């Protein structure tokens, strides 16, 4: 929810609170009015009972008590939060009224009974009953039946009595209708306010949930970033350690400073090219054909001198590093002493992947038409790396042969069964 929407909601709710208050005051005044009217009527009936004990004694007394009870009930039992209690008391009063008025009416033989029942029902229905359609329908049904009964009785009653009864009861009915309408309006307002509050709460909850989600996403991103930084630091330290170790061992085998410079630069450049290619693929790995082109490609002095016939097997970043270094040593060796040292020399590199149980990648390096080669007497760092690194790090197998026609090397490394 935007800020301006929030403000509007607050204003609306303020206006409604004001409206509710006015409604409440009106309702209280109407309630007070009807209570006073009913009390007045009660005084008239009770007074008639004492002043003219010979005229309709029981009916006057019962009507007086009835209106007192109705007035008290209306004054006391309007708390909407105690609807079940009000309902019980209201209908209790009604039952007492029917029994008492019925008895008095039978004894006196006039129209008072249905009139009293009609008024009692109307008041109870308007003020105390739950505002649900079924209860309303039932009340209207009962009141209608009582009204028919009342009218049929009143017609046969002496003129003076029904004028007296109708005259006393009419204002009560008018007030009841008014109070009923007021109550209905009040209920609508309260329900509307409740719905509004619920929807405001719901939108607040939604906004809150969205905020929490954003915070969580932010935390996840931060966590991933921290992990990536740790990983990067780890790689940098390992790379530096590798560079130091490569330098140490290149120096060990170097015959001169320029010899060292050339061999060291070649190794570092190979590592750098592998690093750039891996970083470009988010350290997920490389296809074997791409790796070979990357490492051996720079030693190709014309188009035919190196031919690469490799499959698309995907090589993980860890394997890329050690396999790349191995291939680099083969290439630099070929450029110095083997097939890539002459114009006519050729290197063919092919690969295939065999899966039996676990998947294994075979790479065949084959040199021909170069100068004659023989098994070297001195095993330098390059040779050690070619023959041992893959076996050491990834449980691979390397067979290096110096045949008369050129160097041959068979490499076999395990790779995951899934390939890209």
């Amino acid at each position: 929810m935007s800020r301006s929407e929030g403000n509007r909601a607050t204003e609306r709710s303020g206006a409604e609170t004001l409206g509710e208050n006015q409604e409440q005051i009106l309702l209280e005044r109407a309630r007070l009015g009807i209570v006073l009217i009913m009390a007045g009527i009660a005084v008239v009936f009770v007074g008639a009972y004492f002043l003219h004990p010979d005229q309709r004694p029981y009916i006057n007394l019962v009507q007086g008590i009835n209106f007192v009870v109705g007035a008290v009930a209306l004054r006391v039992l309007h708390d909407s939060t105690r609807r079940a209690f009000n309902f019980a008391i209201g209908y209790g009063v009604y039952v007492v009224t029917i029994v008492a008025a019925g008895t008095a009416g039978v004894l006196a033989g006039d129209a008072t009974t249905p009139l009293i029942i009609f008024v009692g029902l109307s008041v109870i229905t308007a003020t105390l009953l739950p505002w649900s359609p079924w209860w309303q329908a039932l009340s209207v049904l009962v009141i209608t039946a009582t009204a028919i009964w009342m009218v049929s009785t009143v017609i046969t009653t002496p003129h003076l009595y029904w004028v007296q009864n109708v005259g006393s009861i009419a204002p009560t009915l008018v007030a009841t209708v008014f109070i009923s309408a007021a109550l209905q309006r009040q209920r609508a307002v309260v329900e509307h306010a409740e719905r509004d509050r619920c929807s405001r709460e719901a939108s607040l909850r939604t906004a809150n949930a969205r905020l929490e989600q954003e915070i969580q996403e932010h935390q996840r991103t931060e966590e991933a970033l921290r992990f990536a930084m740790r990983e990067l630091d780890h790689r940098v330290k390992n790379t530096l350690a590798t560079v130091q170790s490569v330098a140490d061992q290149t120096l060990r085998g170097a015959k001169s400073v320029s010899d060292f410079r050339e061999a060291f630069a070649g190794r570092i450049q190979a590592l750098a090219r592998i690093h750039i290619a891996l970083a470009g693929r988010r350290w997920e790995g490389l296809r074997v054909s791409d790796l070979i082109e990357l490492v051996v490609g720079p030693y190709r002095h014309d188009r035919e001198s190196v031919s690469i016939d490799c499959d698309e097997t995907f090589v993980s970043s860890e394997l890329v590093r050690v396999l790349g270094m191995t291939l680099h040593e083969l290439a630099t060796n070929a450029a110095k002493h083997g097939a890539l040292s002459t114009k006519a020399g050729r290197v063919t590199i092919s690969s295939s992947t065999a899966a039996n149980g676990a998947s294994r990648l075979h790479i065949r390096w084959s040199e021909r038409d170069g100068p004659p080669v023989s098994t070297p007497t001195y095993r330098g760092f390059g040779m050690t790396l070619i023959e041992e690194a893959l076996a050491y790090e990834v449980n691979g197998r390397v067979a290096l042969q110096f045949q008369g026609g050129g160097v041959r090397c068979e490499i076999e490394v395990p790779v995951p069964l899934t390939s890209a």
Partner: protein
Amino acid sequence: MTALSLAGRTILIVEDNFVVATALKYLIDGYGGSVSAMAPNLERAYEALAATPVDIAVLDINLNGTSVVPLADHLRAQGVPFVFLTGYGDEELLPPHLRGQPRFDKPVEAERLVRALLDLTAMNRG
């Protein structure tokens, strides 16, 4: 002042990177020590220990994603001293009881490492 010498010490190298491991081996060889084996993972390290008893071990904390801690605990139980090699952040892989062990950041300063190896073997013998 006597020159640093690892003569008579048998040392196990546990390091997953071949180039780094061989450089360490040459370093130790250069100081007169004897490297019993280079192991890229825990399995090979246990095999090497079973084949040849060692005076001291050099342990890379993170072996291609696997923690070296079980091996360190094993060595401690056997009374074999050891030092850790770390890249930045690897210390977090160590449980508290191993954080007091000597640690060397990669890339390693040769002389400091050799001195530490000498100190640890001297303590062990003395």
